[in-house]
């Protein structure tokens, strides 16, 4: 029993870490521009495909950690630049119009990127070469793969790095200043386009890394895999309190745990009444319940009605 729990916890942690990495991209963009970046999920997919391409240029990833690392890094850069390009083309011209316009423009970009991936990368499920080391070891009877360990380590390093960047450096201060008011930030000498570009570089970059990890973990990538996982990662971001980086991490991990444990135990608890086919709604149900008690998510800042003038949402 304990072994089983431990095993499931390890699985949950792995899935959760991937969700968290993607959620970071949503939450960062949202924090600065209050934009639901629907195209982010496709950055995740594009990342997985681009990495394979990059690796093949480098001679394939089989058994060579250096190639995997280099390809991963190249993908991070490539998708980062893609993110910046998308921002420049599709979102920046819409800044200061309505809030829904950039959101739907993002939706359009999601369709575009997904179809480009489909046309270039092919419709066949891509049998994914593993970028991660193989092998397993056991902890207290639970099987842990090196893949899982690597995913956790990569996610942890990236998340801690990001948090330090945002909370400890003067660049981070600028990002947060722009997040609060781009206009005021520009008055004190901050070029608001730079932090925004940075956000649109780092967010998609992290999403791409998550794409590589995810595809390596499951061994397959399809051009349409982004949509549903993007939706879940966005849910995770909301769950943690959108705009908050620790919130995204917490939300992602929580979602991983909810899904894993609910699908594992729900059928037994309900005598098969609620089976694993309900997996997708466990997350949403928990989300609804949590938001009812904490309307701004777990770590979201509660905004008092009087200190912040909440004019038109959309």
């Amino acid at each position: 029993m304990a072994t089983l729990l431990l095993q499931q916890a390890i699985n949950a942690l792995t899935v959760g870490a991937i969700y968290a990495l993607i959620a970071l991209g949503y939450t960062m963009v949202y924090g600065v521009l209050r934009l639901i970046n629907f195209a982010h999920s496709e950055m995740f997919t594009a990342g997985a495909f681009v990495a394979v391409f990059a690796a093949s240029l480098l001679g394939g990833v089989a058994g060579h950690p250096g190639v995997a690392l280099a390809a991963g890094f190249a993908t991070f850069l490539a998708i980062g630049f893609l993110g910046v390009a998308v921002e420049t083309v599709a979102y920046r011209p819409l800044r200061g119009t309505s809030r829904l316009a950039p959101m739907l423009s993002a939706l359009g970009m999601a369709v575009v990127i997904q179809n480009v991936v489909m046309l270039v990368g092919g419709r066949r499920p891509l049998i994914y070469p593993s970028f991660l080391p193989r092998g397993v070891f056991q902890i207290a009877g639970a099987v842990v793969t090196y893949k899982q360990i690597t995913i956790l380590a990569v996610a942890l390093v990236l998340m801690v790095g990001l948090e330090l960047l945002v909370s400890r450096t003067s660049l981070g201060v600028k990002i947060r200043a722009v997040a609060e008011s781009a206009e005021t930030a520009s008055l004190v000498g901050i070029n608001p386009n730079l932090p925004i570009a940075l956000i649109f570089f780092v967010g998609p970059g992290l999403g791409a890394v998550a794409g590589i990890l995810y595809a390596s973990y499951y061994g397959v990538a399809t051009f349409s895999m982004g949509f549903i996982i993007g939706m879940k990662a966005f849910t995770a971001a909301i769950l943690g309190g959108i705009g908050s980086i620790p919130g995204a991490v917490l939300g992602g991990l929580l979602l991983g745990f909810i899904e894993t444990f609910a699908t594992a135990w729900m059928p037994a608890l309900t005598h098969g009444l609620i089976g694993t086919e309900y997996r997708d709604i466990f997350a949403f149900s928990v989300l609804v319940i949590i938001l009812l008690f904490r309307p701004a998510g777990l770590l979201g800042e509660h905004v008092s009605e009087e200190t912040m003038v909440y004019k038109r949402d959309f």
Partner: protein
Amino acid sequence: MRTVTLISTAALLVGLSSAARADIVIGSAGPLTNSESLFGTTWMNGMELAIRQANDAGGVGGQKLVFQREDDGGDPKQGTLVAQKQCDNTSMLAVIANFNSGVTIPSSDVYHRCGMPQVTNSSNPKVTKAGYPNLFRPIANDLSQGAAPAEYALKTLGAKKAAIVHDKQAFGQGVAEVFQDVFKKGGGTVTSFSGVAQTDVDFSALLTTIKNENPDVIYFGGIMPAIGLFVKQAREFGITAKVFGADSAFTPDFIQGAGPENAEGAIVSFQAPPYDSSPQLQEFAKTYKAAFKEDPGPYSAYGYMEAQVVINGMKAAGASITRATIVPAIAKSDFDSIVGHVSFQPNGELTKPFIFLYTVKNGKFELLK
């Protein structure tokens, strides 16, 4: 301003209706841009191959055949729109549509209204329930597809306990239910019958339960890439039960996706003999690869055969080739296709549905019976 809009919309709509006219047009509709688009495109490539060959051989009654692909996005609403569009196109004399049962059911209604000969690839038993005389299904429906593996498991393998998993989609759940019925009727025990979310990639929770049930066989009603992942994870969990899958797993992608060592021994049902089992199929695979620069997809041979059904029907329709004359001609189909013998019952189903079971051996599919 609004009158302008109205007029331009009018012009647009009228414009839409006057589609390209050609000698004889054969239409097709299936998923081309959504997550199932792999199946849709490779399926249609098969048809295109048959039509090209027919044209090279001089066409039908001296007329060239033109092939028109349409994307229904796997969406019933779009399916009916496409059906209507094809009906309105008077030079379109037959369609091969649709791929998804959920689309075929509403669209067959539209095709029926305009008397369009419709050859479908969707395998749900319900498709032919409406009893439309213009609808034909030259493939085994889910009843045979689910039954054959169940019988094999019971009789040949002597299995007693089966765990059944499906992906909560019309196709996957359909075949899984048939498997369940047949297996139970044959005296077997079904230890669990579970659905997974269609987009699932992580089956660890379910596999934990299945492992405890210790079944002799596992039937997975679903499509790639889910089935590949399922088999892979099952083996990683140390589950050694024989795994059965449906036709969509009949692709090298399945073996690659699961990993050859994991896929070894898995049994897959398919409505056609193997590509290397007959010279015709070998030839087909070669021609296909030459034409489309890729290996045929799981349904390419069906597409090829279904187009043949239509073309043969047209040839047999007599002097005036119209929708009305093609329908009875197709109903009288009686020929050997690359995948098996085609002849129809009055309800449009095959007289003798052909189904083959394959097993994975040394990383390749091998015919079981």
